[in-house]
């Protein structure tokens, strides 16, 4: 964990990883085709970001942060372990990313869209409401979660930060 410009600790989440932290921490990730899943507990002021690469693990347990169906449960388990209680009914979500810069050689292989669909399905199944979505397009995005406020800000290359 590093200190940011404002003296607030910052965590960077790499591709295929996740992080959960109590306030005050800024959690950041950079997204292309991957989807960033933000979970936030307003009461506990605790937040998490998963950097999901693919929708479905198909039983692969080597890199749980890589897949939507393993990363989201793993992140929720971290909330519950750190708080010592069930998170049901306490979490809200925001989702960001899923862009497509290149035409793939397989036209049906729109990973960004598949990731988005999988994340929506998994969050719905767990009853976690999605408060905001910033998805698609053809540019990368920088996502920052402020665990103090739950604010999620997004920046595209050459642009300014905006909240979603």
């Amino acid at each position, binding site marked *: 964990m590093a200190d940011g410009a404002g003296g607030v600790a910052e965590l960077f989440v790499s*591709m295929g990883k996740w992080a959960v932290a109590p306030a005050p921490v800024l959690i950041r990730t950079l997204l*292309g085709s991957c989807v960033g899943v933000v979970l936030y507990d307003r009461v506990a002021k605790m937040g998490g970001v998963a950097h999901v690469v693919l929708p479905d693990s198909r039983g692969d347990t080597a890199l749980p942060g890589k897949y939507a169906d393993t990363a989201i449960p793993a992140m929720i388990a971290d909330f519950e372990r750190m708080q010592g209680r069930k998170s049901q009914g306490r979490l809200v979500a925001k989702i960001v990313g899923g862009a497509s810069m290149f035409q793939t050689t397989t036209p049906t292989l729109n990973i960004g869209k598949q990731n988005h669909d999988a994340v929506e399905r998994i969050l719905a199944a767990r009853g976690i409401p999605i408060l905001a979505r910033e998805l698609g397009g053809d540019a*990368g995005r920088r996502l920052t979660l402020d665990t103090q406020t739950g604010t999620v800000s997004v920046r595209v290359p050459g642009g300014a930060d905006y909240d979603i």
Partner: protein
Amino acid sequence: MSSDGHSLSPLQLRLLGTIFERGAEAGSRALTQWLGQAVHLTISEVDQVDITEVSGLLGPEEATVAVCAMSFSGRLDGQLLLVFSDAAGLALADMLLHQPSGTTIAWTELERSAACETANIVGCAYLNALSAHLPGGSAGQPETLIPGPPEFRHEFAASLLQFAVMEQASALERVLLIKTRFQAARADLDWVLLFVPTPHSLADLARSTA
């Protein structure tokens, strides 16, 4: 070659490095002619990298880079990416326009076009040389590599790498990247050429170098 058909042994990676040096030599000749000064391309890295380590391979993740992306198809499919820091890309425009370094300060249509033309020249030379030196593929496979038109983008370094490796990441835990660096006698060229095959083409490379 490992049982998954995509992992390359150190020996295979060295062999690929030797083959790709041929592409780099052809790129050196083409770029030297295009820029009017000696430029030397060298293969700096041929490696399979864990996807969790990909984000930082072009330097700071949040740095904005300029990229000219060319797809290629034929014997192999994938992406060839000529990546510049902003300063290096703008210096290229000065070099091509015979202006003092520092004259160009923004990416207008002219600078973007100059960057894409440079990518086209070096990319075509590189791919033609690879076509000539790649070991034999499957029967009936086309032998040539056909480049697509380069496309200019400004992107976060980490996001660009994600876009580039996504097809490989969809099938593999580790992705193959072949990185070429540039050196010139009269200028510091902070450029990188990345060769990123699709999973299918990576399997082809693994088979043909086994």
